[in-house]
């Protein structure tokens, strides 16, 4: 009997380790031979810890499981919705990037290969760098970190740059609230990220990679570290990648609690051992990045999607999606929702369908008031905007952004002026201090919102003006996008800023 228990942080946070221990000791007490396999999560966090049992007739799901439920599961008397693939939340997804996550043992190269792993890399090893870049361009893949820049074009710039050394830097500084897909893939399928980075190296001529992981993710750091060692031992990394004679190696770097290091130039400074201060662009990191050398900086999801693109072909990937948003997006459903977790689907699904149908509305059972899309720098959306299709251009046109595709749902008890103030406060705490609109603007923003809260209507135009300045004058997205949550809250809920009454008078 094979028993699968997630080792993902979210599952552990809900007791998965205790459940695994209970299974081990209960099986031992019964003299039962079991094969206990720790996997990533299937992404249905409300069902965690989700245990799967294979008695030879497929994997049956149980969840959420508490240690007390273990006896009934081993007896075969516990209730099951059947295989995970039959659960509607899962059945309606298109899993490309996350196909293996939750299915395989993340630290087994054999398991990885048995599920399509390394097929993409083997194919890439038969192509030259220009062909690899062309394949990436054809897939239509755009940077999943938030900016949505075409990955293939970035790679091409690095490929054509002349230098003695080039780098692939994976941005795993996933600091945005409401997002956890990077963490999930690093904990559940780290080898796909490694394979993606090796292919990126082959496509650009880079031989060294770094995964810069935030320190708030200790479990992801441990698993990535072990996966890299495993890949090295298995010949996926090193001086002779899969016997090809080609070279690529990589290591994990740990952040130190600075949100701004998720910004690529600030991350590069941090990697070099400096203060995580934003750099002005140009020069582009693609030409002068880590240690002054041409560098690809890509998000975890962008790189972890590369193997499936090379495995199934760029066109297969590009056939999913909407307009210029090609492929699938791992959407993270978070906050006050009944069914939270990871939902990978082709671009184009309306926001409301995600919130009401897939997430099942709020966990509190109260009406949805607002949804913040794209993390702390993303705009709030109200229910009247729920027909907005999930895509880069569509969200831009609606005055927002999809960012790293986290959606955080709030019920009607949310204090939107308070959330706007929090956005400014967060920006003030996390500003790197390099540019004035962000460093000073965020502090003034908090003060101005406090004036509004105290009933000063003249502070509202001041806030609007301040947001304009931050948006136009900041060096990076921290100062530049903080106005998104602030202004969207003001626009959608003017009564909470005391301006509706003024307008009515």
């Amino acid at each position, binding site marked *: 009997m094979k028993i699968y228990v997630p080792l993902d942080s979210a599952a552990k946070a809900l007791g998965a380790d205790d459940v695994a221990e209970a299974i081990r000791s209960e099986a031992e007490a019964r003299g039962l031979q079991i094969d206990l396999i720790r996997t990533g999560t299937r992404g249905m*966090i409300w069902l965690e810890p989700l245990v799967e049992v294979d008695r030879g007739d497929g994997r049956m799901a149980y969840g959420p499981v508490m240690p007390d439920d273990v006896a009934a599961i081993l007896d075969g008397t516990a209730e099951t919705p059947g295989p995970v693939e039959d659960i509607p939340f899962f059945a309606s997804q298109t899993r490309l990037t996350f196909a293996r996550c939750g299915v395989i043992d993340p630290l087994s190269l054999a398991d990885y290969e048995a599920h399509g792993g390394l097929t993409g890399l083997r194919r890439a090893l038969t192509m030259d760098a220009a062909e690899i870049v062309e394949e990436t361009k054809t897939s239509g893949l755009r940077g999943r970190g938030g900016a949505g820049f075409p990955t293939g074009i970035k790679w091409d710039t690095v490929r054509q740059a002349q230098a003695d050394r080039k780098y692939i830097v994976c941005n795993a500084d996933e600091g945005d*609230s409401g997002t956890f897909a990077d963490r999930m893939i690093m904990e559940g399928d780290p080898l796909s990220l490694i394979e993606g980075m090796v292919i990126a190296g082959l496509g650009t001529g880079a031989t060294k990679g770094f995964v810069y992981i935030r320190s*708030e993710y200790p479990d992801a750091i441990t698993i990535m570290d072990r996966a890299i060692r495993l890949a090295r031992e298995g010949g996926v990394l090193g001086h002779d990648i899969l016997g090809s004679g080609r070279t690529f190696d990589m290591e994990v*770097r740990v952040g130190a609690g600075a949100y701004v290091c998720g910004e690529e130039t600030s991350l590069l400074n941090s990697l070099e051992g400096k203060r995580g201060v934003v750099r002005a662009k140009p020069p582009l990191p693609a030409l002068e990045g*880590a240690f002054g050398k041409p560098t690809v900086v890509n998000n975890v999801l962008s790189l972890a999607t590369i193997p499936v693109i090379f495995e199934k072909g760029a066109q297969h990937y590009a056939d999913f999606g909407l307009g210029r948003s090609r492929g699938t997006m791992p959407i993270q459903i978070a*906050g006050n929702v009944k069914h939270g977790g990871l939902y990978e689907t082709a671009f184009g699904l309306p926001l409301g369908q995600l919130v009401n149908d897939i997430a099942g509305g709020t966990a509190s059972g109260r009406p949805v008031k607002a949804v913040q899309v794209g993390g*702390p720098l993303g705009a709030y959306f109200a229910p009247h905007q729920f027909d907005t299709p999930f895509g880069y251009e569509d969200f831009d046109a609606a005055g927002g952004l999809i960012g790293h595709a*986290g959606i*955080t749902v709030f019920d009607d008890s949310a204090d939107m002026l308070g959330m706007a103030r929090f956005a400014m406060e967060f920006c003030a705490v996390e500003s790197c201090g390099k540019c004035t609109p962000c460093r000073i603007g965020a502090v003034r923003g908090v003060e101005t919102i406090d004036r509004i809260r105290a009933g000063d209507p003249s502070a509202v135009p001041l806030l609007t003006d301040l947001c304009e300045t931050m948006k136009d004058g900041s060096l990076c997205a921290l100062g530049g996008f903080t106005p998104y949550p602030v202004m969207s809250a003001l626009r959608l809920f003017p009564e909470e800023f005391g301006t509706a009454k003024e307008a009515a008078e």
Partner: protein
Amino acid sequence: MTTQPPQPDEIRALIETEVHREGPLLPILHAIQSAHGHIPDMALPIIAETLGLTRAEVHGVVSFYHDFRSTPAARHVVKICRAEACQSVGANALTDAVLSHFGLDAHGSTPDGRLTIEPVYCLGLCACGPAAMIDGKVIGRASAESLSSRLEALA
């Protein structure tokens, strides 16, 4: 983690383990903090000398990052998430309740040196908030009662 003030040789040994890396400063600082619970002032000139930096440059880096401490934390460090997703499920009330239970302000430590409570902006547990982390161990769907009693039980 040791509680004795570190000796210069111990700091040098820790630097030695990381100095071969490209851009070794953050790995060095992490190594020192994980061994000694903080970055003692006496370490700065040693790091500066090894890396060919000024002491001010090293201080600038240490002080930039929230993680690095100049004095040791209490025996147990508790991080409570106060980012948006956790706020949507009551993180603010939870934080207030736990802090007031222990009579602390954010970043404060109990006088017996047992507990430091800090805010954190996202642990990536956004679909099972409110989230917290005790000494690196993750906790989901925390309540003020469950978290406070868990913390009371720590030695």
